[in-house]
């Protein structure tokens, strides 16, 4: 189940509870993409998990559903699993693309000057 340093995008820990659930919640909180929250009572919610409080009584998570509306609060106890289904928007592609385009422009510039 341990995810270590592997990218979270696409991760599906399966049914979880206790410490494993708490860990998955922490990872989802830090994740800059949507997750799919599977409820114990059935049904799924796709959204951005922006907050959690493991010390509250009872512990809860908060999401903005991808379909819109106000934030939704869900107790840990109602969560069966969390799948990391959305794209990780912090994967850093924009900067890499900029560096590549700048290097290409520089190379083109020096080729013109030569």
């Amino acid at each position, binding site marked *: 189940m341990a995810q270590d340093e592997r990218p979270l995008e696409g991760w599906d820990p399966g049914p979880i509870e206790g410490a494993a659930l708490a860990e998955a919640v922490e990872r989802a909180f830090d994740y800059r993409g949507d997750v799919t929250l599977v409820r114990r009572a059935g049904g799924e919610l796709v959204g*951005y998990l922006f907050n959690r409080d493991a010390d509250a009584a009872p512990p809860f998570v908060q999401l903005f559903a991808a379909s819109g509306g106000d934030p939704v609060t869900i107790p840990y106890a109602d969560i069966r699993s969390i799948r990391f289904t959305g794209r990780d928007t912090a994967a850093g592609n924009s900067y890499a693309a900029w560096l590549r385009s700048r290097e290409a422009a520089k190379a083109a510039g020096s080729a013109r000057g030569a």
Partner: protein
Amino acid sequence: MSVPLSQMWTVATYVLKQRLRRNPRYPLVLMLEPLFRCNLACAGCGKIQYPGHILRKHLSVEQCLAAVEECGAPMVSIPGGEPLMYPEIGPLVAELVARRKYVYLCTNAILLKEKLEEGLFTPSKYLSFSVHMDGLREEHDEAVCREGVYDQAVEGIRAALRRGFRVTTNTTLFDGASAIRMQMFFDEMMDLGVEGMMLSPGYSYSKAPDQEHFLRRQKTHELFSKMLSNPKKRWKFNQSPLFLQFLMGKWDFECTPWGNPTYNMFGWQRPCYLLQEGYAATFKELMETTRWEGYGHRSGNEKCKDCMVHCGYEPTAVNTTFASWKGFKATVEATLTGRL
């Protein structure tokens, strides 16, 4: 230093009142983020990486004003995202000015000229456009990952100054910045006619695309000492001189994370503008339930180890001015002589 007298007076009386009340924690500047959407994607930015449905959302003016009331800080900084992309930015600023809040609208200025031409804002001593400028043309365009943005920002600054607005600049410095080039940049901004400049080292956001170019403490001291040890009289800085001296290594400050509390669509951000360790539903809850002892340079928190960013340390500098004769004397001296 270039902060107008009326603003200095407002801040001074506010801080003295808090001290007389023996309030150990009080906010100085509310960091109000009405949206995360931006028209740039800067290498060092960790603020904009969200799914599309979050980027399309924004706070309502009512939510913003409720946060301003709840917090009570005399100054409101509006960063983002890009606040000029916030559809209610005109009405929001008008409401804040009517409440006599000193507003710093932090913008990359790409849309500034257009918004001014639309007549969205009225000049006021309470409103300052704080334009993101990370150095001369080459350095700035590199930092924001797009050619031509420096020239657009200069055009925006000129348009705002022509209309009688207060304009300041905010500059984030990264590893590799040249002290001489920065001094040339200060000259260029003064030639443009901005009221003052704000400087800060960058923060190593865990979500920022560029993780390599953040200044560590020793390098920050070296760079700021080189840049500022012999400042020209004409350079005006719109920030606490003690904060600049701290960056030069002349003061050993601890962070005041509650000094610049942050509110956005997720709530009140713990513990500061830079870190996202959770959200409180109310300002009171933020102040009363955040484990403040876990943050700051001396806390041992890895995330705070190298941080010298203005949002954590400028409130300490301001507080030092009013907390000791040494701090007061140093502030007055630097303000009168321009020496740091």
